[in-house]
């Protein structure tokens, strides 16, 4: 996959949809293209967050440690971004991400990501929107869980 194809992929990621292609190309160029085979770990729960990943092809599982071993909580499909929370909060990874198939991803380093957010408010707003969306989902889930008890 060439740089220009990656730009096409990035444009389809909601977070980056508002950014002009030239800047996306720069982002793609300065990011590392990484390959994983099925079963390889992108990052582990508890690690320090140093990068976010955009899945270009393949699938990955999001796993959370529990007393009875890791539980799969979600699946990542191409065009999704993962690992951005730990970058934003300076916290450690909240989950483990493992490649479920042969996986190609774009690894965006923390300092690059933060710099982009500073330079492109549209991206930051989009970011906030996605996060708020997730928060409302989580809240709804929580209410469901409480009322089901």
């Amino acid at each position: 996959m060439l740089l220009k194809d990656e730009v096409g992929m990035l444009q389809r990621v909601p977070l980056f949809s508002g950014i002009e292609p030239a800047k996306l190309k720069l982002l793609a160029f300065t990011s590392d293209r990484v390959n994983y085979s099925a079963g390889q770990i992108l990052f582990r729960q508890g690690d320090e967050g140093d990068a976010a990943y955009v899945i270009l092809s393949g699938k990955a599982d999001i796993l959370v440690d529990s007393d009875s071993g890791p539980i799969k909580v979600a699946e990542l499909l191409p065009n999704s971004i993962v690992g951005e929370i730990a970058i934003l909060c300076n916290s450690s990874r909240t989950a483990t991400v493992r490649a479920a198939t042969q996986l190609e991803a774009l690894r965006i380093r923390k300092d690059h990501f933060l710099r982009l957010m500073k330079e492109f408010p549209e991206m930051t707003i989009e970011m906030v929107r996605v996060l708020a969306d997730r928060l409302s989902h989580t809240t709804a889930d929580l209410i469901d869980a409480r009322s089901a008890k």
Partner: protein
Amino acid sequence: MEPSLARYIWTHTRKQQLWILMIVVLSMIPYFMSFDLPKLIVNGPIQGKGFEQPGATQPFMRLHYDLPFIGDVLFFSGFQLGRKATLLALSLVFLLLVVINGLFKLYINTYKGRLGERMLRRIRFELVDRVLRFPPVYFKRVKSAEVATMVKDEVEPLGGFIGDAFLQPVLLGGQALTAMLFILVQNVWLGMIAFVIVVIQIVLIPRMRRRLIVLGRQRQLTARALSGRVGEIVDGIGAVHVHDTSNYERADIAARLGLIFKIRFDLYQWKFMVKFLNNFLAQITPFLFYMIGGYLAIAGRLNVGQLVAVIGAYKDLPGPMKELIDWDQDRQDVQVKYQQVVEQFTVEDLIAPRIGALMVDDPGPMTNPLSAVSLSIADDGGAMLLDRISLQVKPGETVALVSTATGGAEALAEAFARLNWPDSGRIVSGADDLLELPEAVTGRRMSYASSDVFLFHASLRDNLLYGLKHAPLTSVPYEGAAADQQRWNIAEAHRSGNPDLDVHSDWIDYASAGATGPHGLFEAVRRVLDAVVLSRDILDLGLRSLADLQRHTELAKRIVELRAALRTRLEQEGLSGLVVPFEPGAYNKEATIGQNLLFGAASGLALADKALAANPYFASVLKQAGLDGTLYGMGMEIAEQTIELFADLPPDHQFFQQLAFMSAEEIPAYETLLQRLKNRPYEAVSEADRAMIITLSFAYIEPLHRFGLLSDELMNKIVAARNQFYENLPPELQNAVERYDPAKYIAAATVMDNVLFGRVGNNHPDAPDRIRAIVYDILDELGLYAELLDVGLDFDVGAGGRRLTGGQRQKLDVARALLKRPDFLILNRPLSALDQRMQDKVLRNVLEEARRDDHSPAIVWAVTNPAMAMMFDRVIVFDSGQLVEDGTHETLLAENGIFKELLS
């Protein structure tokens, strides 16, 4: 040291001074003969005196003397020579005298020069020897650069002066006196005039020079202070930048230079003033001669011939007088410098020479306990660091020194290491005062490491083994020219009062490290490095270094085996995708185009990096292979893409770290270049511009940069060009590149590159770490681990060890202390740069390593954290310079005292 320079010189060079004086007197004979000869030539053969008749002859070399009582005695009647033959013979004698005079001059100058150089060597050695014997407190007060400048620069002029120290006054004084006497004999009054003027010169000039001496001393002191400050700036450059004080430093230096300028200018003014006066006095004498002598002549009281003779003789007086006065100035100048230096090097409490005397044999173990007897130590400000402490450390005991912030444990450790001398009380080993024991005992049977590490600018190995170099243990066999050179070295060393210890001998005391020779030593080295957890760091350094193939032959010999083992292992673990190996007939996609073209490691500057594209031969190969146009097009594409991506970014943007093609500073240049070259056909582009563009393509790696510029056809062409390049490699480039050969070790590449013999895939983020782990594994399996460690030990630690991290330096210092296998191991907060977990680990390892093979040294460890005390037999607690608690860990815990408080 001898305070008077003259006496110092006389003591050491008496015989030589007398010899050279004798030679000089001897040289006067041909010198005066050569004065007389021109007259003989002109009067005799040229003007024809004695050859009035044609065919007349004159005796040549006729020797006859008119002796008292006996009368005229003829020793040799001489050869009878004609006019022309006499001219020839006399001219030849003149030539002979010229040669003899020249040879005398040559001998005298060489002799004086050598005499001076020997003395200079002696003085410098004596100064450094004294530095080695200064008491520790002295070093708190001097700047190293000032001491260095004294040894190097300030004594330098002494060398030039020493040869003339006694010769010049005798010689010139003699000449001046002769001329003076001659004048006096001609006419007493005129002689008196000359005499009075000379007396004025002798009295007045030195008086005026006193100020010169004062200024000279100031000049020396300010120059020394300047070099001290410059040294300080260099050492403290970090602090300067951190605090933005570079302009303060500039101001300080400018002020000092201003002062130095003022002093030097004053000096010149006075110097020339004195010179003027001196010349004036010298010239006033002829004036008086002409006036008074002329008056006397007119008055008929003086014969005109006498007056002319006096004036003629006076010509010979100012010359020697002037030189004599110059000599005197030199003498004073040098004397001042010498005194200044001697003052600085005259220190009380100098360590006696016997303490540091050379001892080749093993002094035997220290079996007595080490005791502090009512020991008090104050710091420079007079505050008590330790106040009448008494304690005893028995052999084999492990003691933790725990201290509150103002405790004094560190001072005690330093006192045990003799780095801090007691103000009262003493430290004894058995019945002997520790300070009275030779260093040959304490330096071998005790060792010391602290947080304040000093490393020499040498390899890791040299620094590690430094603690074992006490005495030359082998005599090196020299042969042929080297043997002559060595004999000369020893003879010269003796003549200058230097020791003749051979620095090339093997100084390493293998036995004290528990080894029998270099090979066994390596085991010991490996163990201590493992103990301080430094081996891995050194292995990493080894992997990243170029191996010295003279020394590490094994690595080169087994490189094929190593590479094969790595391939097999990667296949077994299903990781073959991580490394793409170099194959002579294939394109390596993970390497740059430049690397694929060159397919070798550049070992000089001719083919390295940016010079590659500009190399004419390389360019011609590209042309032949039909690649130049393609790569140019590629370079243009890269330039366009790069500029499109990066042109708007500020030069300090972190994205530039990702850019391999050009630096942020080069972007504007490429931008204009691109504007200029766009739409221009390749043929119309100049060679230099082509190289600028083509060089961009050399950095391109398809999987990393993903511009989609590489086709199969291009890759094939590149592989073909690679072969072409090596086929006709011109001789001047033979040594500029080492071709990648699967069967050969490449000296110009790092060990890691040699083992990998390929490129790590760019798309695997954890590949480098995994591969490194595998490489270590394989090296261990093949028994090459030691070899790699040895390569790592070649690493140059830089000035003061600054190429290592603080933690690495401290670990190295502890390893060095351990390697000696001492009877008393003193450790003074040695690992303060490490985190607590690592300190604990190293502490455990060190205690174990020190006691390996039933060795049981006493270990005194000033700990950084009271919790570390748990590992020791005995714990001693200090507070405000007092010993407050002493006992085992358990008893102290039970006491609920300061120790418990410190622990919580």
